[in-house]
């Protein structure tokens, strides 16, 4: 095997190792994962919704979570259709939960009643619980 080929293969191995280790670090932290997802697809609402959830889950950073849910709703409104419906459901429900966790119980109850009234059929309790952040352990 020629020297040039050996050097090329070793360089490829080193570069690939570094890139894969970088990706594995991203997969090791859910907030970093969805931040990278948002950077890869800035117009998509789903990474933003998950970014908000990861913020609430990681450090109970409800202010940051509220910011990302707002961004997700903006992105979803720009796209419309099924994405808007799904994002609005997730974001609005979690924003109400954050509102309650931040102490505004009366406001949270009012918003939740409006949220339920706006939807003719509601999802199952388990499905809703699986969408809530922070995760129940």
């Amino acid at each position: 095997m020629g020297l040039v080929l050996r050097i090329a293969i070793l360089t490829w191995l080193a570069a690939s190792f570094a890139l894969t280790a970088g990706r594995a670090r991203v997969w090791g932290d859910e907030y970093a994962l969805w931040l990278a997802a948002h950077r890869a697809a800035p117009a998509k609402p789903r990474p933003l919704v998950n970014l908000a959830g990861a913020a609430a889950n990681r450090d109970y950073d409800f202010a940051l979570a509220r910011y990302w849910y707002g961004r997700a709703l903006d992105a979803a409104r720009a796209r419309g259709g099924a994405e808007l419906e799904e994002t609005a459901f997730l974001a609005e429900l979690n924003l109400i939960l954050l509102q309650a966790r931040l102490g505004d119980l009366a406001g949270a109850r009012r918003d939740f009643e409006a949220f339920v009234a706006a939807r003719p059929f509601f999802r199952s309790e388990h499905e809703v619980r699986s969408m809530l952040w922070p995760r129940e352990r």
Partner: protein
Amino acid sequence: MAPRALTGTWIGLVALSLVAYLPAIAADFVYEDFRWVGELDHALEQGQLRGRPLLMLSYWLQAGRPAWEFHAVNFGIHALCSWLALRAARCWGLSPQAGLVAAAVLLLSPAFSQAAAYASARGELVAGAAVLAAAAYPGSWTYIALGWGLLLLKDSAMPAGLLLVLCGVVTYFSRRSRALAVSLTALVIASVLGAVWSRRESLAAAFAAADPLDALSAMVRHLALVPAPWLGPTIDFDIVTASPAWVLPGLLLLPVLVVGIALPRAGLACALALLLLAPRALLSSGDLPAEHHVYAAGALAALACAWVYDAAGALDPREVPLNA
């Protein structure tokens, strides 16, 4: 290269890859892991066992275990795939070093990191392993066993499973009775046509909603980046939850079955990888596929790198290919 040196180098590559993947292996569940893996009982109640029995069985065997064990099993399957890629390269007549190139690309290219690091991507990993095993250990009974494995693995792997079972049956019988092989193939084609006809309205709606060109171009771009990921971003992180019907892609690619009867080894593996991609490309409801959906096709891209390595004249003339 001596077999012991070959195995030793492969173990070294696996160890290097393990070091790179440690942060992901030690991590908690992510995204849909909570729904399908973390809350397995509920997933089973929702009927997931019907659509993907083998996959759910593998999760069930680990139920209640910590997240790192799920990630470790995924990494183990990924490492197994790299060994099968090495064997497949040897089976296709490539040099031992070329086999190691294929294994190294699979183990170290970041294009495979989502499949290896995401517990919910185990189905695609196992499907990739089945494709590589069919290439590495060709034979009627291997095809039939792996084909049934794919049919039971998950819905999106069914077209590939169907092809593999058919190839196994046809190659088994074609040695004995060509008429029986042709009849059997015609019967399967007729039954698939019947299934498509009965579902024509829902399939047409799914087809109308899909954006196959976008999905296909994203996948081709991703596959081109397998050996050189630093040249551009890999495909979308955004993990889609499409539930494609599998019959139509199976029908579209049935002509590949004709090739399968002749069984050119690389051709069969390519056909299987295409069938694993087809549901995502054709019926993805407008969403782009995620990285782990192209795992099997990426493994073949790694084998293509091995072929390029040999074709570029890197083969030591003193090395004799396995089947030379």
